[in-house]
């Protein structure tokens, strides 16, 4: 979730919106983040209409609460937190989320991966890619919420582990543990499925 490379002074923009009532500047402030906020909401909620509504609501809340933004974190991180909270509250309302706490999982327990020797390939054909996209979406959507959040931030939105931890309000160590578990859960579920999608192809090892 990175603003465009143009030299934006977001602190100045925010001060201007708050002090001078230049509310139109808010449009410019959020413009670089529209895609990320929507994409994050979609990954969390798995539904385009809900994602758009949640994204709109997140931006509205950011506008209404702009004076609460202290500038201690980056504006983008603050926006991510608002979006996450919005998505979480919707998931809670729908009661569709798997919201196991870490306590309910075996602390220190291992997530075992799928033991497959022969899936080493990225699919290339369009039909395969579409099938893979759906498999990915389903698998990510079925991750327990605490794992889905960190996976979305780190591996879908391309935030660093540190930024992801900051946005989630957890330690970097906890973010790493959750991320590791999320990735292995996805490997365990997806590796056998993806092998089915691409059954008889030549292998292209990575090394």
């Amino acid at each position, binding site marked *: 979730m990175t603003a465009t490379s143009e030299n934006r002074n977001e602190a100045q923009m925010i001060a201007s919106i708050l002090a001078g009532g230049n*509310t139109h500047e*808010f*449009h410019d402030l959020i*413009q670089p983040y*529209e*895609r990320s906020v929507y*994409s994050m909401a979609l990954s969390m909620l798995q539904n385009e209409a809900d994602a*758009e509504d949640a*994204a*709109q609501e997140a*931006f*509205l*809340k*950011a*506008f*209404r*609460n702009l*004076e*609460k933004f202290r500038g201690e974190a980056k504006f983008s991180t*603050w926006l991510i*937190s*608002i979006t996450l*909270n919005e998505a979480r509250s919707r998931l809670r309302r729908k009661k569709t989320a798997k919201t196991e706490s870490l306590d309910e999982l075996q602390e220190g327990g*291992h997530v*075992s*991966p799928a*033991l*497959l*020797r*022969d*899936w*080493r*390939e*990225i699919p290339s054909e369009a039909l395969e890619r579409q099938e*893979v996209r759906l498999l*990915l979406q389903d698998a*990510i959507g079925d991750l327990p919420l605490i794992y889905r*959040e960190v996976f979305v931030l780190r*591996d*879908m*939105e*391309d935030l660093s*582990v540190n930024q992801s931890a*900051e946005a*989630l*309000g*957890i330690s970097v160590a906890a973010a*790493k543990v959750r*991320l*590791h578990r999320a*990735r*292995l859960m*996805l*490997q365990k579920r*997806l*590796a056998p499925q*993806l092998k089915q999608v691409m059954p008889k192809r030549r292998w292209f*090892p*990575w*090394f």
Partner: protein
Amino acid sequence: MVLECKHVWEHISGYLDGTLDAAVLEDVQKHLEHCEICSAILDSTRNILILTADERVFELPLGFSERLHARLEAEMRGPRGTGEEIGEEGDS
């Protein structure tokens, strides 16, 4: 130090992110050189991350920005700062 497979699995994510300590990295690499299963697990996990990254390129819904900014405009014409609860920052 010779690592067993289950210990290597614990380092898969760190290996992919390049965050392992040099000593651990060396042990993991030694293991991967001779363990077909662990290197396949590493490859398949890496492939999933590559596929996930590929999905980042997508189009916003048609009219998304227009609808968003129209809703913001409507908000801006009303009173500002409702002080509503936006959730604790970092509340997880």
